């Protein structure tokens, strides 16, 4: 009976979204509606988590000097995307909202809901010039800027257990061939060379993102994203797939990676307990390990950039991952000038210091001034330099594509890794993706 009740609830949820859109009142801490004219308020909607601390502080700072007051609204984590989608075209829509750039705002841009920031930037070039270009570009859609970076960057790095590497006499690999050699040595020692949380699917995707970038450069993916299906069938695409296959066949990931998850601590534990030597993961691996295995993190958590590929077209300095989060502005906001002033605070010293204090790494040009005050200056500096020097910072594929593509991408990636589809199957699956 309980299950029966649940399905009717699910059905209700599906259809009630219509009703919800009409009745949903302002969420989180704020109240009132931005739709009421002359209220002298701008609503700022963010993903609810620990970082809200800094966002609250910035809003307070803004309200000290501004006539138009900013109100911070939060929606708890897991529901953010769904609820945003529900309210963004209603009276309850915020003036400014948190997003991931790329595909996450593309549907809103297509629906004509967002304000291009080009005019604001023309008046105040600092709104663009004060951010690292590779990051800023993520929120550029159809040649127009739609967002300003507002949290910390999350590049994907190759983490390692330095003790395991030392025991096996292996150095952190600089090239793909060195990585393959390391895999052989580590396997002989009875260690799983690379920990992979394949059960979550997105960690598997990271290997595709990096190898495609190294082999073909960022252009291949940009073409594919733009609707050029031939890009997936190109020689470079097949070469990258071949290299992934080479790693899998060499036993780099062991045989049970699809039963391991990152999100429940499975793959980080493999690395921390020395059962695996490497893990390719976003920069949050550091705080994850720090939280679960502080001793290991201090003593032997290593990190390096992704190996280079001989003869590859991609710049070895390119990175992939989540570039940052962004503030985008709704076209119908009543106070564009106030919004412009509010956005300026996202590169202020106060903002940078606040983010660094809670372990985030902002992507503003003034960040280096404060690196020495970070929780782990060496790690923060490494990350910042990597992102700063990167000619291209590729947003994760599943976020660059529109939401309808997320599931098919994850499925194709998982099936290619476990051998359910071959190269042709993968190419076909990617060609079938909805390219916005």
């Amino acid at each position: 009976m309980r299950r029966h009740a649940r399905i009717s609830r699910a059905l209700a949820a599906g259809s009630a979204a219509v009703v919800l859109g009409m009745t949903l009142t302002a969420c989180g801490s704020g109240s009132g509606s931005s739709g009421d004219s002359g209220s002298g308020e701008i609503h700022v909607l963010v993903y609810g988590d620990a970082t809200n601390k800094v966002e609250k502080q910035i809003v307070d700072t803004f309200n000290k000097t501004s006539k138009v007051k900013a109100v911070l609204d939060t929606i708890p984590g897991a529901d953010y995307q769904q609820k945003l989608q529900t309210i963004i075209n209603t009276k309850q829509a915020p003036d400014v909202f948190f997003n991931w750039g790329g595909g996450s705002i593309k549907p809103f841009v297509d629906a004509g809901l967002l304000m291009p920031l080009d005019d604001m930037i023309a008046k105040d070039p600092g709104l663009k010039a004060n951010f690292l270009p590779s990051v800023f570009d993520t929120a550029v859609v159809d040649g127009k800027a739609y967002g300003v970076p507002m949290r910390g960057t999350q590049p994907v790095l190759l983490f390692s257990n330095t003790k395991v590497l030392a025991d096996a006499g292996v150095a952190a690999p600089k090239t793909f061939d060195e990585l393959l050699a390391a895999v052989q040595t580590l396997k002989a020692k009875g260690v799983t060379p690379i920990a992979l949380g394949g059960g979550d699917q997105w960690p598997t995707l990271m290997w595709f993102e990096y190898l495609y970038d190294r082999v073909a450069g960022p252009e291949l993916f940009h073409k594919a994203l733009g609707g050029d299906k031939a890009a997936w069938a190109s020689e470079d695409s097949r070469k990258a797939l071949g290299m992934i296959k080479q790693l899998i066949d060499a036993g780099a990931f062991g045989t049970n990676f699809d039963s391991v998850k990152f999100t429940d601590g499975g793959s980080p534990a493999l690395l921390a307990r020395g059962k695996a030597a490497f893990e390719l993961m976003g920069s949050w691996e550091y705080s994850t390990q720090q939280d679960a295995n502080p001793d290991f993190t201090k003593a032997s958590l290593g990190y390096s950039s992704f190996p280079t590929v001989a003869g590859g077209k991609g710049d070895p300095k390119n990175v992939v991952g989540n570039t940052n989060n962004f503030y985008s502005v709704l076209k119908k906001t009543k106070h564009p000038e106030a919004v412009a002033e509010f956005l300026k605070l996202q590169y202020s010293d106060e903002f940078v210091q606040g983010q660094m204090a809670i372990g985030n790494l902002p992507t503003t040009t003034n960040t280096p001034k404060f690196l020495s005050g970070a929780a782990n200056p060496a790690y923060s500096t490494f990350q910042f330099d990597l992102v700063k020097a990167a000619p291209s910072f590729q947003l994760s594929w599943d976020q660059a594509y529109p939401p309808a593509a997320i599931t098919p991408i994850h499925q194709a990636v998982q099936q290619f890794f476990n051998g359910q589809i071959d190269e042709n199957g993968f190419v076909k699956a990617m060609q079938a993706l909805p390219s916005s």
Partner: protein
Amino acid sequence: MTTTLATGAVTQRRPASRAGTAVTRPGFAWALPATVFFVLFAIVPLVLVAVLSFTRWNGLGSPEFAGLDNWSRLFDDPVMVKSLWLSLLLTLLGVAVQTPISILLGVWAAGNQRNRAVLSAIYFVPLLLSATAVSVLWRALLDPNFGIPAEAEWLFGDGNLFGTQTGAIGVLVLVGAWQFTPFHTLIYQGAARAVPQVLYQAAAIDGAGTVRQFFHITLPQLRNAIITSVILMVVGGLTTFDTVLILTQGGPGTDTTISAYYMYQKAFKGFDFGTGSAVALLLVLVAAVISLVVVRLSGYDRMRSTTEGL
């Protein structure tokens, strides 16, 4: 639940009002709240879903009429067809695994020794846990490197349970059975308690042993309970969602993407509410047809009493 209540109340009162003795019509008034809620939360959403299934809607703005687009694409979609088969397979396996176990446990728990009462109380604990908590728990227990498989390699091999279709389906069936067998046991316990003791006494006098008594008295007497339990399992099995969401996420690939999860993927992950609604409606139709067939074939609709002729 609400329908039975509503119609029950109406039919009971009908003769009175027909006879003209009732001043007001209390029967209808009593049924009104339930009817309103049923219409509001079951009928209206169902109609809305049906309408949505003929539209294109990503949650922004207003839905656009799309004709039969969603439906025709759905029938060409290999994943959709596969998901229906997977739903049926999971349901069948669930019934096959849970029914014998819960009959045996239910009959056993219907006894009257003290230790049975305590043991069966403990046994019902899984039913009290949310399916989400249960799934998270099992996911951790079955971790190939740090869970049970790591300790019992002779049985699990490399422990890649979630990486193969057989393994993933096996886990889903196991977890479903672990959580819901107690519920069905409860049904059988109640039914077994209702079997008239005089039948067993007569059988004992005729020299029938425990096994014969079970097959010739208990089992036939449980007929209606079995049908009730199977229908609940079928409806529950076809709409399984949370265990799949947490344990397998429809993977590996699309190997455990059952229809209810497919609906979620389409509507809430891909923001394609039109197709999601079509999947949902298809699932409702399939579940309704299967339930009707079970009811018809089993003669449950005629509701013959198991105590007839006693």
